[in-house]
């Protein structure tokens, strides 16, 4: 199959603590934090949106991969918070990284898994030799209604992947599991998403992530112990831990890719950022399972093997970037989210 040629990630530096949000709404921070396994979340600055986050991640990927951006034949940006309803984010990114004009580009939406859907498309285009390199981005500045349960986790961040014939990690297989399951949605013109609360768990996240992972392992004849790392979409810090245990993975396989407790749910960025954190430390020959999840609902699963080329790849240290943070209070958070405008 195709390979990951390069990757880049970006998480805004601002953070708000669960405690601070709970303080405003008169809730018990401790039970929310322990219930969600989330302690703080990233907050986009007032001038950041899905386009700027995508560009940041894309630039880092191109720079690290040391490729000529003009050879990128496709750019797909997956997000549920594209700045425009009509007018692609992907063209902004393509122009910013110097990939225009000879390429195809489009925006994707599939709740939190649009970015991995873009990766699959890039794999197909590379495999069919329609393009040399393809770039898939998952990025979001996630919306949450003030006071809603989502407010404790809805965060910002994104990751960009360059897909080509050979690279730092081979993609051995990818499968998807998709159904019409309305667990989470946002209609045209609505500022905040609605959700089915507990319905988002068992029949939505767990069914799709669990099934996609099992389908993938069945197809290639692997088992949980074959993987050095596993990354599952992280709507909170609890769900990925629970599905990992259910599937038979151990804590040590998932902890390096688990970013949600310290940055929140970056939606389309979530699983892709988790994978980036693992690629930051992975050694040649190591094997990685990644499963995204998008409400509505579907999961894309990837089986990946790290190659020798990773040794010379300039790793960016996502965790180091995340550590460089600045806390804001609730009012500043609301200002940054432009809630007062």
């Amino acid at each position, binding site marked *: 199959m195709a390979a990951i040629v390069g990757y880049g990630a970006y998480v805004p530096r601002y953070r708000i603590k669960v405690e601070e949000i709970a303080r405003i709404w008169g*809730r018990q921070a401790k*039970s929310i934090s322990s219930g969600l396994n989330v302690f703080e979340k990233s907050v986009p600055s007032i001038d950041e949106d899905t386009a700027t986050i995508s560009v940041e991640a894309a630039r880092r990927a191109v720079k690290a991969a040391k490729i000529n951006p003009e050879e990128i034949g496709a750019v797909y940006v997956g997000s549920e918070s594209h700045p425009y309803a009509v007018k692609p984010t992907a063209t902004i990114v393509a122009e910013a990284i110097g990939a225009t004009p000879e390429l195809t580009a489009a925006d994707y939406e599939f709740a939190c898994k649009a970015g991995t859907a873009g990766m699959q498309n890039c794999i197909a285009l590379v495999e069919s030799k329609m393009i040399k390199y393809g770039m898939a981005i998952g990025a979001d500045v996630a919306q949450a209604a003030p006071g809603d349960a989502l407010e404790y986790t809805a965060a910002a961040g994104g990751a960009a992947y360059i897909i080509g014939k050979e690279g730092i990690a081979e993609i051995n297989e990818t499968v998807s599991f998709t159904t019409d399951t309305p667990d989470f949605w946002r209609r045209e013109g609505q500022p905040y998403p*609605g*959700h*089915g*609360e*507990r*319905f988002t768990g068992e*029949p939505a996240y767990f069914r799709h992530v669990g099934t996609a992972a099992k389908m993938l392992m069945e197809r290639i004849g692997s088992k949980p112990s074959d993987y050095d790392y596993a990354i599952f979409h992280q709507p909170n810090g609890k769900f990925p831990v629970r599905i990992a245990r259910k599937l038979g993975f151990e804590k040590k396989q998932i902890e390096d890719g688990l970013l949600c407790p310290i940055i929140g749910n970056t939606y389309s960025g979530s699983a892709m950022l988790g994978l980036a954190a693992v690629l930051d430390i992975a050694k040649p020959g190591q094997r990685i399972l990644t499963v995204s999840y998008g409400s509505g609902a579907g999961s894309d699963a990837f089986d990946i093997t790290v190659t020798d080329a990773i040794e010379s790849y300039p790793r960016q240290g996502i965790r180091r970037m995340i550590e460089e943070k600045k806390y804001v209070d609730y009012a500043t958070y609301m200002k940054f989210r432009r809630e007062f405008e």
Partner: protein
Amino acid sequence: MREVAIIGIGMTEFGELWQKSFRELVAEAGVKAILDAGIEGENIDAMYIGGMSTGRFIGQEHVGSLALEVAGLEDLHIPATRVEAACASGGVAMHQGYIAVASGMYDIVVVGGAEKMTDVVGGEATNILASAADREWESFFGATFPGLYALMARYHMHHHGTTQEQLAMVAVKNHHNGSLNPKAQFRREISIEDVLNSPIVAEPLHLLDCSPITDGAAAAILAPVDIARKYTDKIIKIKASVQACDTLSFHSRSRFDSLPAAVHAAKKAYEMAGVKPSDIDVAEVHDCFTIAEIIAIEDLGFVEKGKGGKATEEGLTALDGQIPVNTSGGLKAKGHPVGATGVAQINEIVMQLRGEADKRQVKGATIGLTHNVGGSGGTAVVHILEAI
């Protein structure tokens, strides 16, 4: 009046049953009860189905007709009636079924109860449930059921010295029992600390002091005792079936540490059955909140008023106690699909009296009681059953 027996029971698993619709729940519980009784469809003379707010939970009223259709008995054109009395809908349906058989009007009657509560989100379930209180004078002013029962808890704590820990012990006991019931929504043990550390819903009630939002259905088949012998030798006789009512609004009551309707229903039921509280071997009571079980065991005369907390602490109501209460896990752990609850309580007591309750079996139980409450006590239904 004729003597009435329960010849069959059936219920679905209780829980968040995303994959099952209201109609499927009704069908499943009904079919199980019919198979348990060993009757045929054409034997059935009438149906009563308890449902609290099907109209607001799933947008479906007229569920009597729906139950008839899912039972496939439309060609018989028998009467199928939906009964509503908030969370006592199932208990009142049982009472209606009892009257219908005892009077001689019908021989074989199916009583059911069902609720599909997980299709609504946000505060909607709380709001729908608040329709069981006085909308004009309570709910519109922000009172919810956790709020009303929190008032009872506060009053009980203040006047009788009941403690938070004693409230928590009700939940701990019922979760233990639930862990032994394969149909319970929560089949896991919890500790007093778990209850006290769970989020506060309405002070002093924590999340684990409250019964959950649940999908589920339950059914029972009633027949006159003499006809019952044709179908089964495991006859459970209804020794008493009493419904009592009170003001809709909680604030109009004479006292806050008791539900007078439940006291009245219990007193009449004991008279009707010719038994005393101390004769009861096992009871299912309406523990919609932990304080409700403490008040219930007092109202039923198992203990003196004010001593419910202490009695719980001392293990009186534990599975191996003097009067095991809520062996099924109760509303707290078994789950509380409001319209089904009264009939599910009957299911548990019948299982206990038949000796079919497996790991939660109360040894030698022959007389059992159910206590089903609507709203903050506007309706209460007490049944006393006996294995004969």
